[in-house]
Every structure is written in structure tokens, then in C-alpha cells.
């Protein structure tokens, strides 16, 4: 029982470290009140996020840069990008 309490506390802490961040702007800050530059910048978030997630997956093999024909992921990615 004590063990479960321990996990419950960690879980609660992690929830507190997650949900409020996601709520911040959606609830607290109206888009009208955002500075213009921020609002325009938001336009680039989705593409920047996608690229920042994908490129390391394509270019890194076990943490090291691998730009060569032996990198299957890179080759697959290039083909996929071309046919999309």
C-alpha cells in the first residue's frame, strides 16, 4: 500500500508538470492580446515542430550523424518525401 502511495505522489507531480502547460495559452491568453509578432510566429510552429522531430530520426543513427547510402531511414524518408 505504501508503495502505491509513492507512485500516486509521483503521478500527481507529473500531472501538475504536464496539464497546466497545455492549458496556459488556450485558457489564459486571448489571441487578441498576443503581440503581433508572436501571432505571426505561431504560423510556423507546426512545420518547425514536424521538421524538428523528423530530421533527427532520419539523419542520426544511434546518436551519430549518418548521411550515407547505408542509412536506410534517410533513404526511405527521401523516397517518402518525393512521392508525397
Amino acid at each position, binding site marked *: 500500500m505504501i508503495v502505491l502511495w*509513492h507512485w500516486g505522489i509521483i503521478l500527481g507531480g507529473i500531472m501538475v508538470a504536464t496539464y497546466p502547460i*497545455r492549458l496556459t495559452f*488556450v485558457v489564459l491568453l486571448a489571441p487578441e492580446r498576443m503581440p503581433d509578432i508572436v501571432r505571426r510566429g505561431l504560423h510556423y510552429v507546426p512545420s518547425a515542430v514536424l521538421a524538428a522531430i523528423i530530421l533527427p530520426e532520419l539523419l542520426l543513427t544511434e546518436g551519430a550523424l549518418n548521411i550515407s547510402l547505408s542509412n536506410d531511414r534517410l533513404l526511405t524518408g527521401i523516397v517518402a518525401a518525393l512521392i508525397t
Partner: protein
Amino acid sequence: MKIQLSILLGVVPFALIFGALAISASIPPIAVQGYSLLVFADSAQFLAIGLINSGATSVVVVLSIFIVNLRHAFYSATMAPMSRHLPLRWKAPLAWLLMDEAFVMTAARYARGNTQAAHWFMLGTGLSLYVTWQLGTFAGIIAGSLVPYNGVLDFALPLTFLALLVPTLNKWPVAAASLTAGVLAVLLNELPFQLGLLLAMLAGVTAGLLAERKNRVMEAALP
């Protein structure tokens, strides 16, 4: 619809591996499933397991998760204009579901100019990801060490993301933002707590704004 399905299938290996890893770190099954049910944040969940496994204190675990999750503030800000007209009873659950995959799918659809009923789309996407994530975690808990981790299955998700990214690259500033973010994410890959990812996103957005301004200056210079 095709992309949605492949994203759903794409998260399954991660959910399986998460469940299996957590069990192998001797976390009680109920806490593992509870974690997926109550937090629903794929990469942060993996980080927590790794930290717990290496004997980190609860405070370190929670603080690290907080830093990793800072990028969700970006997501939240991006969603703000889309959800501005909605009452809190919509916003609160949508924010709850705002993890990477749900965000990119909604935002990519919005970026393509499809703004109709964005909140219903987000809710449907988020809920189906949520259910998939729970089932995958459960299966991972049950299967434990039987879950294969061969690096092939988990490549489906980046590929699907690629299919989302390519159609958005139709304007120079967006391409500049993506290129900058992607290259920096590779270069800063070694930074702890996925700070590289956060910095790469910031730099990408800045690059997009700069390219946009340069475009405007050039247009203004034309006779």
C-alpha cells in the same frame, strides 16, 4: 483519413514499448496504466521511466518532465486562435489531449486552410489517440519482455509526420522555418531533457519570421 489511421497505428509501438519498459523497471502495473491514463504525454512518459529506473528522486522526475513539456506551451499558443471562440468546457479537454501527435495533426490540417470544425477534428483525433495509447500501454504491460524493439516499427510515425510536413512547405518562410528547426534539432540532439528540440522550434519560428520580413522588404522594393 489515411494519415490519421497511420498516426494511430504509428503510436502503437511506442505505447507497447512504454508499457513493457515500465514493467521491466518494476513499476506496479496499475501505476503504469495510471500514468498513461492521467498524463498522456508520450515522450515525457519514456523520460520518467528512464529517470525512475536510474534511481532519480521524485522531485528530479517531476522537474525533468516539466522541462520536457515546456514545448507544449507552444502547442497551446498555436491552438489559442483556433479555440478562441470555444467555451471552457471545450478548451479544458482539448488542452488535456494536446500531446505531440494530436497537435501536429490538427495544426497541419489548420495550416492547409481547413479551418472548419477544427475543435471536433481535434477532439476526435485526440480521443482516438488516447484510446489507442491506453490499449497499447495495456498490451505492453501484459506482453512485457515479449514486445519486440527492433527500430523498424517505430519508424512509421516519423514517416507519417513527413507526409504531414511536405504539403506545408509551399512557401519560402515555412521552408526556412522547417529547415532551421530540423537542422538545429539534429545538431542539438545531445542536449538533456530534449532542450534541443525546444531550442530548434524557437529558432525555426524565428527563421520563419525573418524570412517573412525579408520577403516583405523585397516586395516593397519592387516598383
